[in-house]
Structure formats: structure tokens, C-alpha cells
């Protein structure tokens, strides 16, 4: 059994974010990064499967040198080896480009199961998991709250709107994108962290994966046009008074605008 866990390194939730000079991303210098919170639940799920039986857990992440820290943390928590995809050519990829890179890694690794977070804390696109599954040609489920082995695959409970759950069965190999909170993520032990530096970490380029010229800004169908903080508008009206008064006035305004 081999499990591939896809991790994204994102700015730390407490990091102070400033927009860069080009206005298309944030200034990354001097800020702290961490593993995308959704992906930590995916990693924990993989490590639980490993703890329960025979499984090799391989973690993969795309990005510059700083990404090795996320991978080492995953190794410290118990993953067996890591793949770092590092190539400036990949910079500027859209979600499809990222999915192509991850699918190419999956093709080389042939995992029985791919685990990843439902979305990333910074991009919030939720696009990479289903795209990757399509490119791999395997079944997938997103927003998974629970995954249990069932026959030759997994029975997944997906979170739907309104608190409802949908049950889907996936045959292996498959891809599961987890919702946050499906488990309690473990800590890397000090011994685990010490052992992590001796575990293998391979570095791959776009060329190694047969993707030269295919990914990156040039191949992207979607490009970030601009990032900006919401502009304080002039048309805001502050409703004051007691709670009852505010609610009554607010409902009146909504009705007035024909929204109810």
C-alpha cells in the first residue's frame, strides 16, 4: 500500500501579509510559512492508515527551497519519504498547471491512494484535487469527513450543504480530498524531527516530470490580474440603535431593495 500526500506550504495564519510591488501576490520575504491546514488533516489520515497496517507514506510539495521545511515536518510526523518539486518554470502556474505537476508525480509513484486537503488556506480554489484525479484517471471525492476501507477501496462520507452527508464508494487507486477537522492532527515528536533529516527527499524539476514548457505562467489559462485590499466605500450606511431597532431597520432596507 502506497499513499501519496500532497502538501502545500502557505503563509502562516498569523503572518502579516503585504501586497508585493507588482500587485499580483504577497511579499514573501521575512514571513513565516506552514503546511496548509487542510493538508495536515490529509497527512494525519495517511499516517493513521500507516499505523494500522503496512503502508508507505510519500509526501510531495511544489515550491522554492523553503518548502523543504514543510516536507521535513511531515517526515518528522512519520511520513517515509518526500518529493520536492522545485523549478522556477512552474512559477505562475494556474490550478491546472499544479494539478498536472502533481499528477505527473503520481504517475511516477503509482500510489494506491492520494490524500490532500480540500483546498488551500491562501488560494481557496478547491480546484486542484478534482483536476488531478481527472488527469490521473482515478475516482475522487472532495470534502471528505470520514474515509473507511471498504472492499477494494474506500467508503467516504462527504460534507454537503446544510450538514447533510453523502456516502460514496471509491475503488483504488483513488484520490480523497479531506475536509478540515476529520481527525486530531498529531505533533511531530522530537525524536521524529531528529530522524526526519535522515529520511530521503528527492528533488524534481518540470523537465524530470516531462512537463517542460507545459506548466508555469506561459501555459496558464488563468492568471492573477490583481490583489488588493477591499476599498473603503463611500456608500456605507451605519444603522444605529438597539438590536431590535437595527434588525427592524435592516429588514426594511432589504425589502426596500427588493431583495426579500
Amino acid at each position: 500500500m502506497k499513499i501519496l500526500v500532497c502538501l502545500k506550504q502557505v503563509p502562516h495564519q498569523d503572518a502579516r501579509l503585504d501586497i508585493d510591488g507588482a500587485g499580483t501576490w504577497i511579499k514573501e520575504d521575512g514571513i513565516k510559512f506552514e503546511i496548509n491546514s487542510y493538508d495536515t488533516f490529509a497527512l494525519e489520515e495517511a499516517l493513521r492508515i500507516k499505523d494500522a497496517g503496512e503502508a508507505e507514506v510519500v509526501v510531495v510539495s511544489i515550491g522554492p527551497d523553503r518548502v523543504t521545511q514543510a516536507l521535513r515536518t511531515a517526515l518528522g510526523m512519520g511520513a517515509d519519504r518526500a518529493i520536492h518539486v522545485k523549478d522556477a518554470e512552474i512559477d505562475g502556474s494556474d490550478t491546472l498547471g499544479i494539478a498536472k505537476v502533481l499528477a505527473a508525480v503520481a504517475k511516477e509513484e503509482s500510489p494506491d491512494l492520494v490524500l490532500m486537503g480540500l483546498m488551500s488556506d491562501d488560494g481557496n480554489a478547491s480546484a486542484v484535487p478534482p483536476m488531478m484525479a481527472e488527469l490521473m484517471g482515478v475516482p475522487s471525492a472532495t470534502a471528505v469527513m470520514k474515509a473507511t476501507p471498504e472492499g477494494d477501496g474506500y467508503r467516504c462520507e462527504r460534507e454537503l450543504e446544510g450538514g447533510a452527508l453523502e456516502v460514496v464508494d471509491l475503488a483504488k487507486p483513488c484520490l480523497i480530498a479531506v475536509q478540515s477537522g476529520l481527525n486530531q492532527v498529531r505533533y511531530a515528536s522530537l525524536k521524529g524531527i531528529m530522524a526526519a533529516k535522515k529520511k530521503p527527499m528527492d528533488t524534481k524539476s518540470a523537465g524530470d516530470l516531462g512537463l517542460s514548457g507545459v506548466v508555469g505562467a506561459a501555459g496558464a489559462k488563468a492568471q492573477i490580474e490583481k490583489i488588493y485590499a477591499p476599498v473603503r466605500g463611500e456608500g456605507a450606511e451605519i444603522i444605529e440603535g438597539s438590536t431590535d431597532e437595527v434588525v427592524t431597520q435592516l429588514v426594511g432596507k432589504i425589502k426596500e431593495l427588493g431583495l426579500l
Partner: protein
Amino acid sequence: MIEWSEQHEMIRDAVRRFIEEEIVPNLEELEHGDLPPYEILRKMYATFGMDEMARGRFERQIAKAEAGDAKEKKAREGDGTGDGAAMQLIPIIELCRYCPGMVTALGVSVGLTGAAIMSKGSVEQKKRWGLDVLTLTKIGAWAITEPGSGSDAFGGMKASARREGDEFVLNGSKTFITNGPFADTIVFICKLEEEGVDSRDRKILNFVLDRGMKGLDQGKPLRKMGLHSSPTGELFVNDLRCSIDHLLGGEDALNKSHGAGREGAKDTFQTERSGVAAMALGIVSRCLELSVAYSRERVQWEKPIGEYQLIQEKLARMEVARMNLQNLVFRTIELSAHGKSMGLAEASAMKLYAARAAVEVAMEAVQVFGGNGYMAEYHVEQLARDAKVLQIYAGTDEIQIRAIARDLLTG
């Protein structure tokens, strides 16, 4: 060492996450509700495998001692990395960002009590008491201070041991004993009653007492200025009878010179003083972080207070202290990497600087926060109260100054 390694940062992040999830939600109860810190500390030990690492170190040490080369440990060699020291200091720094009291409770149990048993005890005594204290299975207390003796710990010490046949009869009162109210294993430091020997010159002995022994009374936690998460109390020993098994080092301890006990305790002081720099770094880092954030957010006369030069001066001084303390911690790790440790004078200088820096920075943080800083909600108030003890315990500032000056004048 010039900066934290990737591995160090991983340890820091993991410990910080544990503290934010397990300690911060309980901070109110720990600081103001008399919640003892031990279960959380045990959970931390288990979570990060610190108990298993302590057990591994213990077993290696015992195996060496049983093979007859216990004396070899003095000539230790560094592994070139200092990872062992870093793994001890990083949790201290991180805990002190929120709860310096927990470091005191932990440090006294494992660092002072455990180390005293492991350095002075026989193999049998180490097995009987050392392992459980080192793994936090049992809580330790190291009882030296008395109502009438603080800085002059040995000279003014009244606690005594009288030999009666195969037994010893112990008497004495101890105060300001960290973990005293809850300790399972207590190292009780006292003087051997020796006829014809002046009280100030009598042999210093270390006995291990178990909770519940007849003649041992452990007082309730004392109310104090800070470090509320570290229970501190009095111990009363009245005609406590114990066999020589409880005397660390047994007959060997009785046959040693009169100065041996004092020198042994000084080794402990040096270790203790080195740890204070890490504690101060945690307090200073957190105070600075909170002060910078507040200086950006707090607006007076239509601009953030961080734009006023008087506030900038405070922040700059805090940053200078943080950098100095971090470099002192780096030096401690680097020395360890090379199998070295600081001499008493250097450790004293480091402790003196660290304690003063922590108090100054924490009090300035209160000032940056103004009225909010004086309120418990903003946390710098607690850190300022906690910081003060660094100038008092493990040797007061005045004692550090004396050690530094003596070294300069006699060296």
C-alpha cells in the same frame, strides 16, 4: 551557531502548537485558579517523546555506571551539533512566552532534583528515584532554602541529620520550595551533626524523601507575586527517621571532604543559571511581539503609537535585548556542541544580564500598553510579574555580581 536551523524551527513550531492548543486555553486556571501544571507537562513529555528520550538517556547512563566507567562522563565530547542542548532550550523558550512558571516547575523537578539524584546517587538510588523523576512520572523538589538562609544557603543552613546507629534523624524547615506542595520525591539538603565542628563548616548531605514519610509535612502553595503556575511551598521535617539508603551517595557521601557537598551544589547553580537566558528570551520575545502589534494597532491623536519616537525607542531596546539573549542561547548550544560548558562566572554574567533584560523589557511592555498593560487580559502584566523572579532565584543579581567580580579579581 549563528541562527536557528530548519530542524530547530521544526521543534519550535511543534512545541508552539502544543502550547497554543494545550496551555493557552488553560492559562487562566494555571495562573489564577490553582491548577497544578503537572498533567499538562506530562502530556507534553508524552506528546513529544521526551519521557522516552529521558528513559533512553537514563538506561545508557546506568549501563555505563554498571560497566564501571561512570567517571568517564566528565570528559564528555560534544557531537558537533548541540542538538541535545537545543532540544532542551527550545521548549523552555516557548513555554516562557506564555507560562514561565511551568518551566520552573519542570526545571526544578527534572533539572535540579533529577540531576541531583543522577549526579550524587548510587546506581541503586538512581534506579529507585532517578528514572521516575526524569520521566516526570513523579514530581521532584530540591529543598535547599530555609527561612533564615537564602543567598548564604550553606552557612546559615539549620536543617540537620543526626546519625543514630543505622539510621539518620532529620530535622529542619525549608521554604520557597518549588513543587514542594505536590512533590513525590524530595531532595532534602542538610548538615551532618558533627561534634566539635563549627556549624558553618559541617558536611552537606542530600537525602531523598518520599511523599508520606513519617515526620515530613508538605505545606500548601504560598501566594506569590508571579509564577502562579509553579506551586511553591514550605517543607517541615520533624524527627524523620530514615536508613542510609536515603542518603545520596551513601557511606561515600559521609567520607567525602567537608567542602564536597558545597562544590556539588555549585555545579547545579551553573546549570540553573544557563537556563535562565532561555527563559528570559521567551519572555522578551513575547513581550516584544505583543508590543509591536499593539504599537501598530493602538491609535492616539489619529496615528498609531508606533509612529511616536518614545515608543520606537522602547521597541528598539526590546529588540536589542532579544538579539543579545538569542546570541547567549546560541553560545550555550555551541558550547554544548563542543562538549563544553560555561564557567561559573560566565554563567553568572549571563544570568545577571538575562534577568535584568527580562524585567526591563517586560516592564516596558506594560508601559507601551499603558492602562491595558496593567490589566491581566493583555498578558504583559503576567510576564512582568513572572520576570521579576529571575533576578531573585538561582542566585540573586547581587550574588551573580559577586561571582563575576570575584572571578575578575582573583583570576
